[in-house]
């Protein structure tokens, strides 16, 4: 058949079959047992021309309510942030996106150097000694941190704060089950990890303590206090951190974290209905040789020029096979590039300014909700999310908001039964004062 992705002509095919010494292509498949040979064609939709398919898929996309044409206050781990336009221009360069893992460093210096720069920026933001080249997402990165902790301490229990993203906790539980690691949830008090309960639960079989920073409710945990408790019990302290918040907040590395993980989606990566995002994994020099995934290191070539290579590969699955502690191979390299470009564009000043805008605008929203008679549930320090109590079900309010072109907040009652009729409102730098005012006014009306 003739197709724009298949360049062989009938004559090419004839010549090639003659070289091979067979009559037909079918002969090349004669090693497939007759009884299992698939005959005929797949029962899938017929091919469409480029323009017809584009038209169809545009119509399908248009069925969705997007965060571009609506005003979104939905966060809960994935945020509607400023995306510098150049990000997409860089990652659209096909020298990057049509390459694979940089196994041949002489022709992959671009990718390798970009990853080295990513590793540096993540290490800077988290205050950790080093970072890897990326993980699938924040959730699986947290799970891998738990596995590392269990392997390193030879202990079989993880203490996981209830204020960590519920879906992240679910992923940790799935990985932990595979490794026969017990997962114990540490309850919250007033929207933050309950320190007294943590002290009660921790013991000499605790491999690690996991918290989120800022946590799922937008509240900022007291990392120093939690880290001290973890270390006293000789467990590792694992922090899942929003790297944008670290533009302003004291980095986990300065507060005793042994491993800091999270998702760099906040840097230039679209919401994309769940992925691809960009997990990161940062840790101390002490744990360097136990890091999952790929690491890029600096070295020199035969002429003394600086260059970059994949390094410390003895940790990885393709060398260690069944002795490997992680099976990650493909990661999220292109998204790490996207995040690097966004972090570069924001730079030292922009990341602080953007983080600050998130805090300040969220404080404005908090005040506006309270002024309108709403109760804001947790009163501790917040980043860009607050919990607002409603009297009507959140799902009902959100159904009305979408009619006004507003994507409402996350319905906390769906995952925290005790927080029925509580909504998690995210306010990023992209939300204007007017949009916030309209949200508060509409929610007031629909909640009455």
């Amino acid at each position, binding site marked *: 058949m003739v197709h724009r*992705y298949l360049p062989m002509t009938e004559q090419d095919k004839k010549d090639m079959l003659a070289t091979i010494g067979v009559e037909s292509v079918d002969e090349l498949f004669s090693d497939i047992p007759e009884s299992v040979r698939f005959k005929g064609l797949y029962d899938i939709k*017929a091919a469409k021309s480029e323009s017809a398919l584009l038209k169809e898929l545009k119509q399908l996309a248009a069925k969705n309510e997007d965060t571009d044409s609506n005003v979104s206050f939905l966060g809960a781990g994935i945020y509607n942030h400023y995306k510098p336009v150049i990000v997409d221009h860089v990652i659209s360069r096909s020298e990057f996106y*049509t390459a694979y893992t940089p196994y041949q460093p002489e022709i992959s210096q671009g990718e390798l150097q970009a990853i080295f720069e990513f590793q540096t920026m993540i290490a800077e933001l988290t205050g950790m000694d080093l970072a890897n080249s990326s993980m699938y997402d924040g959730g699986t990165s947290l799970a891998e941190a738990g596995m590392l902790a269990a392997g390193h301490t030879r202990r079989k229990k993880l203490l996981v704060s209830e204020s960590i993203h519920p879906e992240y906790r679910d992923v940790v539980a*799935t990985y932990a089950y595979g490794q026969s690691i017990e997962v114990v949830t540490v309850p919250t008090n007033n929207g933050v990890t309950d320190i007294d309960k943590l002290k009660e639960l921790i013991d000499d079989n605790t491999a690690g303590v996991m918290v989120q920073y800022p946590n799922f409710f937008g509240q900022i945990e007291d990392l120093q206090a939690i880290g001290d408790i973890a270390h006293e019990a000789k467990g590792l302290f694992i922090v899942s951190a929003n790297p944008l918040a670290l533009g302003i907040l004291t980095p986990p590395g300065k507060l005793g974290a042994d491993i800091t993980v999270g998702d760099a989606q906040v840097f230039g990566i679209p919401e994309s209905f769940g992925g691809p995002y960009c997990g990161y994994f940062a840790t101390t020099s002490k744990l360097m040789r136990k890091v999952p995934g790929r690491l890029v290191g600096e070295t020199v070539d035969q002429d003394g020029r600086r260059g970059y290579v994949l390094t410390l590969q003895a940790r990885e699955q393709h060398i260690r096979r069944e002795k490997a502690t992680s099976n990650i191979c493909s990661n999220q390299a292109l998204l790490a590039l996207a995040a690097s470009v966004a972090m570069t564009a924001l730079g030292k000043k922009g990341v602080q300014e953007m983080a600050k805008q998130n805090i300040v605008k969220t404080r404005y929203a908090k005040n506006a909700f309270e002024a309108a008679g709403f109760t804001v549930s947790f009163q501790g320090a917040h980043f860009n999310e607050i919990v607002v109590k409603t009297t009507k079900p959140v799902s009902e309010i959100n159904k009305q908001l979408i009619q006004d072109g507003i994507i409402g907040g996350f319905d906390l009652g769906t995952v925290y039964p005790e927080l029925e009729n509580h909504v998690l409102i995210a306010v990023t730098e992209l939300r204007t004062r007017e949009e916030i005012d309209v949200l508060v006014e509409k929610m007031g009306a629909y909640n009455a």
Partner: protein
Amino acid sequence: MHNENQSLIFELSKEGRVGYSLPELDVPEFDLTDLLPEGFVREEAAELPEVAELDIMRHYTALSRRNHGVDSGFYPLGSCTMKYNPKINENVARLSGFANIHPLQDEATVQGAMELLYELQTSLVEITGMDEVTLQPAAGAHGEWTALMMIRAFHEANGEGHRNKVIVPDSAHGTNPASATVAGFETITVKSNEDGLVDLDDLRRVVGEDTAALMLTNPNTLGLFEENILEMAEIIHGVGGKVYYDGANLNAVMSKARPGDMGFDCVHLNLHKTFTGPHGGGGPGSGPVGVKADLIPFLPKPVLVKTDDGSFHFDYNRPQSIGRVKPYYGNFGINVRAYTYIRTMGPDGLKAVTEYAVLNANYMMRRLEPYFDLPYNRYCKHEFVLSGRRQKKLGVRTLDIAKRLLDFGYHPPTIYFPLNVEEGMMIEPTETESKETLDAFIDAMIQIANETEENPSIVQEAPHTTVISRLDETRAARTPVLRYTKVEG
């Protein structure tokens, strides 16, 4: 050739430059010390670069020029299926209705996205011959682990939690045994025979009542079809184990044989390989898993279903599910690209893909056979493995041949893999390359074979034309420098 070092972005930084444009702050300003307790505010700023927009664009353009992609030239990296990445896929994935939707939006507002995922699931059920597919796993290795966790849950649900061994052929990709370990299994290696296929006698020897599963790549990493597949499935099923299909090499068998018809109980696919989601410099991937009916109850949560009224819904009510393997619903953007590709090719197109992939590989194998050793001489599927042992005797290693290929503008094949071939070179041309491209690469390989005999130093000292020469990997590993540190002064 450049002689100076390529600058790092940090070295271009100059205090006072900006590359961003944030919205105006239109709410009252607060002092951070009023909003955050003492000790919560960072004392030292993160040292991110301070550069203007053109600096950024030039920097990354310079880096891109130091990188080889499929669009730059031929990339016959075995087992990675480096085929053309269609541009329409990129446009579709960037449509606002796909790129700018939040995973936690009300289902009623994302029915278009859910419909696309459902259609993709349905297509992959047909392509694999399985009963159900989950699109959640983020990459191939993640899919392997997901499927093994389901097999574990299946055995436990049947009161057979003692089944703790996963059998993996010696030619398997490293992720197979690593995934087994992460899923809590012990790996048993089964040998290959002199034909490069799994040794059935050895397989019979290693199976037992503790066998949980056999993981099999078919065609295997030598590019050979495991023609005893039905006997193998029978041996495993006979002792109560499950048969797992590593779909890394599906490009070789589409429309020719389906895992579901070959006795496999589950399969993972690499949508970034066979289905053209671009490789992205090492990711993102997408590693859907297909299963037969008896594994369906164990699928990760949530499961995307079509309801009676024709709408789409994420079903969380799955009491036997292994749980979540990833937040949200998988690498949606890659799934959009794969779906676009399947719709671009259609049933005839996917069949032609496999036929040309296999034709191309066999053609290259026959043309190169006189110049390099071919340890397993039979029809190959989408790829084949040459051995450089003849050249090694002349002092030229496979690594040298790979480096010499760089001088011709090619990405080399996968080298030193699979482990059961001495000085292996695994070549996968894919179906999207023209005969002219294949011939030019073959000519380069022949020239290198001749150079090895006549002037080996030109091969041993390669590459000669790249922006950098061979790098000191030992130094990188002995004294790791994993981040930039500003030199003061």
